[in-house]
């Protein structure tokens, strides 16, 4: 079955060596919320603008619902975008802002009114219809922007850093609201963000981008727990990366020798004995205890607590290993006043289960 949105080997070359998008191919299903995640300069915004029609690809195709978008100007595409700054027309009321796109379509007066009312109801701003944008709060402005971009029932909705302009508290509430509205409408959505949390909470699938290329595509849990490369592992969340060599290669388990410890990983990998690898370990998968575990051969290491940062819900420790490497450990504060608190300078044992490691070959 052909995907709803097909981005096929799209390249955008601005000339003078500035290749913003370097051969990107993505297939997006109907009704998905898809996130392009990467730091600034990775090409995600350029890709978004090519979808919207503000830039034309140097080569490659973009096909939406069977229609090739090549050469189509923005006003001829069944795509609508919500800008990071909302870009509400300051001289028009909320009502007129939302009606703008419908009027350009030549929509009949009563149908326009009907659809605008429906949109206002969807974002719960019925009482603000006659207000001007500067009379609304940031969150309200965003809802207007969303309503405006959904009014024309586009085949594809584009979001440019949707939560970038909001403060932290507002962000959490808005995230959920946004997703609910998008799902209720059922529109296919592509969003661009540099904020991992935003991508992971809102999107059903994420594409991690760097330097114009896609590094990995998958659902949030897959990206987080099964990163394909060192870069992705390091980019998403926090991670401890340990270099090592494959010493034992069995179908159901492998042993990797690192500078400070030996990893016993509970699954097989494709590789040969002696090959260099990296083992990625997420801080929350590591446990700390004062006493050593039963089997100190694998999956544990002795360390000294060097730093301790209290975050309320959890505490992050930085441990110094024998070789001088630092290990980041995150422990949830399950007890309000624990009997045995860990302090800087304490010697501890860090250990983790054999399923916690991510083995990376590149």
């Amino acid at each position, binding site marked *: 079955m052909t995907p709803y949105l097909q981005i096929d080997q799209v390249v955008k070359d601005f000339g003078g060596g500035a290749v913003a998008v370097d051969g990107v191919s993505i297939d997006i299903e109907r009704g998905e919320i898809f996130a392009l995640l990467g730091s600034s300069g990775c090409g995600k915004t350029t890709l978004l603008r090519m979808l919207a029609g*503000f830039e034309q690809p140097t080569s490659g195709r973009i096909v939406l619902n069977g229609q090739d978008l090549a050469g189509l*100007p923005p006003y001829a595409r069944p795509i609508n975008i919500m*800008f990071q700054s909302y870009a509400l*027309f300051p001289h028009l009321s909320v009502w007129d802002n939302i009606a703008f*796109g419908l009027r350009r379509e030549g929509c009949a007066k009563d149908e326009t009114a009907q659809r605008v009312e429906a949109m206002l109801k969807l974002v719960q701003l019925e009482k603000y219809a006659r207000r001007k944008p500067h009379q609304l709060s940031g969150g309200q402005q965003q809802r207007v922007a969303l309503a405006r971009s959904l009014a024309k029932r586009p085949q594809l909705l584009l979001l440019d850093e949707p939560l970038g302009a909001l403060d932290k508290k507002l962000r959490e509430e808005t995230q959920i609201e946004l997703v609910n509205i998008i799902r209720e409408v059922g529109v296919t959505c592509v969003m661009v963000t540099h904020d991992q949390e935003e991508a992971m909470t809102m999107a059903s699938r994420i594409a991690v981008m760097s330097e114009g290329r896609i590094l990995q595509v998958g659902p949030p849990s897959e990206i987080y727990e099964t990163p394909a490369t060192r870069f992705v592992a390091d980019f998403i969340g926090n991670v401890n990366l340990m270099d090592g060599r494959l010493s034992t290669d069995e179908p159901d388990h492998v042993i990797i020798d690192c500078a400070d410890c030996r990893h016993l990983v509970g699954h097989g990998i494709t590789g040969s004995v002696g090959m260099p690898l990296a083992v990625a370990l997420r801080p929350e998968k590591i446990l700390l205890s004062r006493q050593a575990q039963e089997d100190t051969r694998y999956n544990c290491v002795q360390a000294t607590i060097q730093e301790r940062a209290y975050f309320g819900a959890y505490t992050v420790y930085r441990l110094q290993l024998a070789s001088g490497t630092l290990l980041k450990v995150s422990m949830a504060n399950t007890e309000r006043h624990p009997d045995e608190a860990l302090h800087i300078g304490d010697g501890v044992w860090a250990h983790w289960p054999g399923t916690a490691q991510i083995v990376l070959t590149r």
Partner: protein
Amino acid sequence: MSRVTRPLFGTRFARLFAKAWLLGGYLFLYLPIVALIVYSFNDSPLPVVWAGFTLKWYGKLAQDTEMLEALLLSMQIAFMSATAAVMLGGMAALALHRYRRFRGRSLFNSMVNAPLVMPEVIVGLSLMLMLVSVQHAFGFPRRGMGTIWLGHVLLSMSYATVVIEARLRELPPPLEEAALDLGARPWQVFWLITLPMIAQSLLSAWLLSFTLSLDDVVLSEFLSGPGATTLPMVIFSRARLGLSPSINAVAALIVAVVSIGVIGASLWIARRERKRVSS
């Protein structure tokens, strides 16, 4: 970026100095205007010797056909040249703002900026000589109201471009893109979005051009023909001959009209700002 505006010199002397300097400056700027108005009521043919209060110069003004005709002509030219200047200047501003790279852009930019600083005698002379050459070759145009209009448009256009372009630069770019995205074609974007947002600057540019035209002497002298005498030309020829109270009367009236206009406009703008901020 927040700005904390408070005087950074703490001494009282410094603050007094600042106030004194500002006061002195304003005094310098307004002294001639006040003098003009005061002496327009002077009952004496010699404007600098006070001989009593009178309104007779205003009365004489009402019968001064030369002055009145010149005023009418000047107003007509000013109105037409301001309108043309805003249209051409607006196009130039749009061109410079929207199209970052086109062939001959730097030449275009220089030509738009040049009349702002170039001495008017040069502009007047060159335009006049060109018009004469064209007249010799094709038989038209005759020098007169039309040619004065031409010169004024040329001068005002530069000022209009500066004002309008400044406003265009303040517009956030996503606005036009949002309009395109929502289905507006480029000309609709301009008409529905850009134009309303620069409307105030268009008005400012128009008023500025109007004033420049109404006040211009040099270009008018170079470019006028028989029967086309503007108000500044009349005032100038009289002023050259010496001091004349009729000029004072005209001056007082112009100052009154302009002051009411400028103060009124400023109050109106201030009130709009307050309404915008408070709601």
